[in-house]
């Protein structure tokens, strides 16, 4: 009875996973196909798999430029996120006047989706003179509320006696943060790196609005442009899609524990 049930569970899960993986297979198969991809019936296995499409991507569009822009923006976002979120998280472990108001502000900001702010956000960014700039692309993403709370929880988990001991030994506030709190919060830092990278790497609407200049556009925009003028040719579009997906999949598989913890701790702890 027990064994039969386990067997049925495996069957159901295998079916679900096959469904979840099917789109991955289909895009990968198309990316390595060199025959006419619109032929009917489509082949389930590529006849002679090859990697030409991946090479073509580099010639059809300024792929290195998009990649460079995406990397610069992601690096800015990840770097500032760690700094700003750790600082804010540390501040929230202290008691200060108006702390309740600040907490309430953070929590209510979580309910405002970024997409609901695009019109004024665009106007503000243009007033700041940051349209078509790396800094403008990164600015709205530079701090994340979820991650502030992840840092707050991590700092609160450090035993107070350790901090007190350091203070008695004469360490200043800055050195306590750099030498004791941050080294003990590696998990929070990893969480923040992963989340900030995924969010900035995947961002589409914001770059779409504020970058008109093709030399400042990031990979998602490049992909969308590629789609609009090269749709009916080869598997190159799908090779491009695969190349863009690989970093996120890689980061996720490397750090899925941190990624999931970040998302769920933001979700349940607020």
């Amino acid at each position, binding site marked *: 009875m027990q064994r039969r049930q386990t067997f049925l569970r495996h069957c159901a899960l295998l079916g679900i996973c096959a469904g979840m993986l099917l789109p991955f297979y289909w895009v990968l198969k198309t990316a390595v196909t060199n025959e006419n991809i619109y032929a009917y019936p489509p082949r389930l296995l590529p006849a002679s798999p090859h990697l030409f499409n991946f090479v073509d991507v580099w010639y059809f569009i300024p792929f290195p430029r998009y990649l460079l822009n995406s990397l610069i923006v992601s690096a800015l976002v990840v770097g500032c996120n760690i700094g700003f979120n750790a600082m804010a998280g540390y501040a929230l472990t202290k008691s200060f006047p108006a702390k309740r108001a600040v907490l309430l502000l953070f929590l209510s*900001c979580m309910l405002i989706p970024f997409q609901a702010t695009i019109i004024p956000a665009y106007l503000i960014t243009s007033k700041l003179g940051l349209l078509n700039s790396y800094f403008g692309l990164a600015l709205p993403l530079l701090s994340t509320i979820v991650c502030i709370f992840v840092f707050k929880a991590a700092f609160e988990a450090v035993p107070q006696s350790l901090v007190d001991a350091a203070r008695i030994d004469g360490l200043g506030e800055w050195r306590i943060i750099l030498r004791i709190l941050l080294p003990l919060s590696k998990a929070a830092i990893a969480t923040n790196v992963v989340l900030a990278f995924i969010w900035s790497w995947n961002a589409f609407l914001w770059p779409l609005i504020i970058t008109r200049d093709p030399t400042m556009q990031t990979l998602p925009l490049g992909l969308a442009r590629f789609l609009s003028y090269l749709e009916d040719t080869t598997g190159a579009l799908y090779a491009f899609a695969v190349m863009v997906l690989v970093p996120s999949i890689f980061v996720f598989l490397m750090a899925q524990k941190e990624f999931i913890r970040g998302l769920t701790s933001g979700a349940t*702890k607020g």
Partner: protein
Amino acid sequence: MARAKTDDFAARGSGWWQRRRTRELALVACFLLPSLTIFFLYRVLPLGWNVLLSLQYWSPLKPARWAGLDHYEEMLIYDEVFWQALKNTLIFIGASPFAIALALGIALLVNGNLKGAAVYRSIVFLSYPLMTVAVGIIWRWMYDERGGIINFALRESGIIAKPIPFLQSFEWALPSVIVAEVWQVLGFYMIIILTGLQSIPPHLYEAASIDGAPRWAQFMRITLPMLKPSLFLCVVIGILNSFTSFDLVYIMTNGGPGHATELLITYIYKSGFGQTKFDYAAALTIMQFILLLLLTLLANFIAGGNAGSLEHR
């Protein structure tokens, strides 16, 4: 030596503490400043500005004129696209309970000690962190009339005789986009529900088994009530997704055919950045924001009125 130190402490007295406290407060303020600036610039200020803009006639090169509720009047009475977009947005949100139910099923399957559960979990979750633009391109291709695997499978199995142009047809486009959206977000729902499942104390089930309660009764009386906060959270995320699904709709159909897959967010984008009607787009944004708040309150009410309090626990 010890004596000297005590005197020293006494001499520093309250003035020393005062200075230390002031320094600490200054540090707190400096540390909060960058994040608060960003949230002020890109959350709080835009919300207020949206309200203001929606009450004005304004475009980038013209001075602002007071419009009162004109934009809202135009939207609610004359704008058919608005109603279409609202309907589609509600359908989009209305599909999320089904996705959550599916995720609950999967979460129950992978919960507990099953060999390979971690692998199943990763596979189901894998689609969530992916770039939505790429996901949209993949699904466009899956739905393609000739090269797409969905039409191929349906034709080969004899369910349909002629290929369906899913994303170009008025009746199929919206459900097709929703399926792609569910595919991407399913794993996230599953993870939230799993976290909820793991926080249920096992002794509740032990007690119920001793009392001879059957499995489904345990599910109805223990699992579901204990999962209420997680399920509420999933519903809120489902509501928020109607905002965040811009990327997917933009890539897969761009709101078409006609306005069959137009969501409020894509309509906001088109009004604002396609036709430079920033004022009207701001009014649309306010409508969607009100809708979001109302639905969240409604979900909170259905969940028993206290589910939202988990944030303040």
